[in-house]
């Protein structure tokens, strides 16, 4: 249980940190920020790689989790980059 309390602490601090970091973002960057954050939520890929797989169901679930998280990661970063490259001052 001690482990969970420690990790819960990390969770809360990260949320506060996130709120502080993003509170004053100019509205120009709202879409890239959202798309960038969306790519980060593909971190579920790390979770998917940690799964244990014994038996067909587990293998299938792990495959699905890796597949969908990868779509999220690759798509998210690429499209954010594409979008940001258009935001140039002329």
């Amino acid at each position, binding site marked *: 249980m001690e482990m969970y309390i420690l990790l819960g602490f990390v969770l809360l601090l990260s949320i506060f940190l996130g709120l502080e970091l993003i509170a004053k973002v100019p509205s120009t960057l709202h879409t890239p920020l959202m798309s960038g954050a969306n790519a980060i939520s593909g971190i579920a890929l790390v979770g998917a790689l940690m799964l244990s797989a014994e038996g067909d169901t587990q293998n299938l679930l792990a495959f699905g989790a890796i597949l969908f998280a990868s*779509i999220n990661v690759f*798509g998210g970063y690429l499209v954010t980059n594409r979008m940001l490259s258009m935001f140039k001052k002329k």
Partner: protein
Amino acid sequence: MEFFTTVSPDTISTIQNFVYIGSSVLFILGIKMLGKEATAVRGNYFSALAMFSAVAITCLSLKIDYKIIVAGFLLGGLIGSIIAIKVKMTAIPEMVALFNGFGGLATFLIAWSQFNVPDNSLFQHALIMLTVYIGGITFSGSLVAYGKLSERLKLGKGSWITNILISFFYLSLPALVYVIFEPSISTVLPAVPSYFLFFLGLTMLAGLGFVTPIGGGDMPVVISLLNSLSGIAAAFAGLLLLNNVLIVAGSLVGASGLILTVIMAKAMNRTIGNVLFVGYASATQATGSVEQGEVKPITADDAYLILENASSVLIVPGYGMAVAQAQHVVRELGELLEENGTEVKYGIHPVAGRMPGHMNVLLAEANVSYDLLAEPDDVNPAMDSIDVAIVIGANDVVNPSATEEEGSPIYGMPIIEVHNAKTVFVLKRSMSSGFAGVQNPLFFRENTRMLFGDAKESIGLVVSEFKD
């Protein structure tokens, strides 16, 4: 993996945790840099590097067959890359919704897989249920948002299908409480057979019921909220797997999504609860706003003559510009006006369009310099010095009722006060009201001229006049 079999698992785990700390720092720096124009591109690289190192180091200790991993990774990478490269900038909102849904689905599957592992503690069991619930709602909710944003799904409030879906959402709440405490409850009451499978299905239906009744114009709020939920689901999965980088990255996404949700709701002068569970429909009956009168239509020729003599022009785009794909021709008009000695600015309302910052992306795509883009607070004080305000496919965000008519459902919403400009051009397809279903008195004002028709065509005509 031969090499690593000689290293003890403890050492590997220590190395992994050190790298996770490094990636967490990179994620934090990355998201911080994403919030500033000058550093945004580098911020995205930082965050991608963080993702790469976290994923790579996790591969040191795998329990899954590597063939499954390579297959999922390659296929997913290929699909994601193709979508990201091919998507049109006008389709960004629905694509973000789709990717977001896939992230949610991944956490849903992770939690499902953990459920099948024997000997979960009561706390782990509760975490699994919460992660399944949030991940599932994120997935199916995002699919509905995708359908609505791409205009494939027409289902809205009031349809019987919607009502059934909504009842699934409300049913899912007590079901969530039940499944969280199921291990304790089933010691007293007879166990419900395969309750988990029912719960999996119910979560999916609940996500549909959560988003289906919400209208298209409220999507900026919904899409931000779903984004936040996908982060929270990842953070919960991190608690479940005792993985700190999942917790940190997930929480950052959760927090950023939450802030955007609040900003969007504020820009509509509504609470998040009102957007999600009430909608505009119930408010509209309260008002008797029937301001009618003569609208004054003009032709592109007349518009050109007025614009040619204007010394300052404010362009206010809305969702209609996205629909008509008019951003390029708008930029062209802006440039021609500037060549003519006119000062041009773009007034961007935070909720114009279908996602946060939607208009900014479109104008950036069309090569409009971002220092020409101004927020309502910047343009409103000097509005009476503007010669012509051109409203392109925007409606509710320029509705003067929001500042003048206390009974109006949108009263109090911050707007771009174009009605204070000397002349207002409104480019519109027809006289239909905006998403909020509120009549817009702007169209009947003394200083308003209506330019009916497709925005792209109308502006194209003005542009060709300028060129002649």
